[in-house]
């Protein structure tokens, strides 16, 4: 019992919070502001708590397992959710369904936790759905906006389709190996064509969730349609979680198919980077822009994943950590501006520096980090991904990735240019940022600068037991 409490503590705490919210909702007892503060506090405590009592072990047979690295991954996700709760507080305060929103978001987070910890295809599938269905509902949270519904519709239908394919793949794997337990499967795989086919089916489901080209098409539409809080959750938290489990599945389960998935990842990484970048070039809406940029970032993550070694894991986890800060900072600024002025286009950001220097600097830092420019952490993150990806001495692959960084720099600089250089007769008026939001932005900014320079963070990730 004690083991149950410690090993599943992240999930249990989350469930606790979810039920608390449910009771509050039923009791109708709190105003939005105070409820939000309470939630933020709870999430902070949850984040802090996630660093303690981390042990390694299995539960429910082999359905659930956890390791220090998994615990750390959960901490990253906790942090991300906490930051989102801070950054989007302007929007959250106004929303009619605050407890429901968090209930859904935390359910999804719970799903992700379980997914990362899953040792079994069934639990994996269920938690994947748990991490998806509530988010689709969340995507529709701007109830009055048609685009919000449209995005949600696209998300739920596409993900249902992709989970259909995933399930078919799982069924074939089950058929050919006779097991749905991940450790067992890795023993039983023999690389027969049917298994390859099944693997492709399973792989595409991951690809869909991670928005790998050509399974990415839903991403931009959903991101643009959803409220920014949901977009940032989708692009940061759910991407991160899927990346973590993706690595685990590839490295631990499909080890016999290493050659196949290596090349698959190489091909898809290139396609993802190129397509993501090319689409991002033209975007006007900041959310859509960040959507394509995050697709391109996933391409880089794939470069790291291709490593199939511990370095790959460490670099991906590290990158996701940095990505949490960078992307959330960008979304945070976008959220503040969108909430106060309703402006979401890059052209609206022209001359932003004149009126909102703080927001501009944070945005610029975030974009530089996404572009991988030192001294921001993104530089280190990207470099380690490429380092990991280069281990097989396929230099052309690294070269393609590195060249893609140029394109990405171009469009990130487009925003920077709009903010700093372009003249605008009608710039965004000075926005008063709430202290909480400011704090969150500063945390993000600090993270962007420090995570790279404080090398022990990476070293710590590398020491964590996998």
């Amino acid at each position, binding site marked *: 019992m004690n083991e149950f409490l410690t090993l599943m503590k992240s999930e249990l705490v989350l469930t606790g919070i979810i039920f608390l919210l449910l009771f509050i909702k039923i009791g109708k007892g709190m105003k939005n502001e105070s409820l939000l503060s309470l939630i933020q506090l709870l999430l902070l405590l949850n984040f802090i708590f996630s660093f303690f009592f981390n042990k390694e072990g299995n539960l429910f047979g082999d359905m659930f397992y956890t390791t220090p690295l998994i615990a750390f991954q959960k901490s990253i996700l906790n942090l991300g959710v906490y930051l989102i709760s801070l950054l989007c507080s302007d929007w959250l305060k106004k929303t009619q369904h605050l407890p429901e929103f968090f209930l859904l978001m935390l359910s999804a987070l719970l799903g992700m936790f379980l997914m990362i910890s899953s040792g079994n295809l*069934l639990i994996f*599938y*269920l938690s994947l*759905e748990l991490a998806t*269905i509530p988010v*689709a*509902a969340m995507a*529709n949270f701007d*109830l*009055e*906006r*048609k*685009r919000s*519904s*449209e*995005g*949600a*519709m*696209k998300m*739920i*239908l596409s993900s*249902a*389709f992709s*989970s*259909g394919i995933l*399930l*078919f793949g*799982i*069924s*074939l794997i*089950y*058929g050919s190996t*006779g*097991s*749905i337990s991940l450790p067992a499967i890795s023993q039983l795989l023999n690389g027969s064509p049917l298994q390859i086919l099944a693997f492709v089916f399973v792989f595409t489901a991951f690809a869909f969730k991670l928005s790998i080209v050509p399974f990415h098409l839903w991403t*931009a*539409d*959903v991101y*643009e*349609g959803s409220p920014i809080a949901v977009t940032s959750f989708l692009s940061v938290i759910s991407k991160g979680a899927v990346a973590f489990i993706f690595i685990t599945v590839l490295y631990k389960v499909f080890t016999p198919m290493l050659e196949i998935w290596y090349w698959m990842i190489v091909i898809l990484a290139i396609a993802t980077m190129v397509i993501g970048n090319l689409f991002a070039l*033209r975007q006007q809406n900041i959310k859509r822009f960040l959507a394509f940029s995050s697709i391109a970032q996933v391409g880089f993550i794939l470069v790291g994943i291709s490593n199939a070694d511990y370095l790959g894991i460490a670099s991906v986890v590290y990158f996701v950590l940095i990505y949490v800060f960078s992307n959330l900072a960008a979304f945070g600024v976008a959220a503040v501006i969108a909430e106060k002025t309703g402006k979401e286009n890059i052209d609206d950001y022209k001359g932003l520096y004149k009126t909102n220097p703080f927001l501009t600097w944070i945005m610029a830092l975030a974009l530089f980090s996404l572009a991988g420019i030192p001294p921001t952490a993104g530089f280190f993150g990207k470099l380690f991904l490429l380092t990991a990806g280069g281990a097989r001495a396929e230099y052309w692959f690294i070269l393609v990735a590195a060249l893609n960084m140029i394109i990405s720099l171009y469009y990130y600089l487009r925003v920077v240019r709009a903010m700093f250089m372009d003249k605008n007769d009608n710039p965004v008026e000075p926005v008063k940022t709430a202290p909480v939001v400011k704090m969150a932005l500063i945390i993000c900014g600090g993270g962007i600068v420090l995570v790279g320079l404080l090398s022990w963070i990476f070293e710590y990730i590398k020491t964590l037991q996998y």
Partner: protein
Amino acid sequence: MTIEPGLYHLLFISTALFFIGVYGFFTRRNLITMLMSIELILNSVNLNFIAFDKYLWPGKMDGLFFTVFIIAIAAAEAAVAIAIIINLYRSHQSIDVENAEDLKY
């Protein structure tokens, strides 16, 4: 292939059903019918699991449980999807998927 129905027959049915569903998903312009296609897809998977459970790994019951849970998930998914579709219908006055394309490029 024997005339006696066996695993391969079931797999044929399930795969066919799967791709019938996929075809429906691709071609039906009504969101609700697309959802129906999804149901076909999920059912075909269920059939797969049961078939494998029956013919290959009868003692384990993994496939059986998988099926049970998929049915539950299908219900939940359908519920949320229908809620979203209805919401979309309210603002769109249409559930033709071709009309829901404000978000693009």
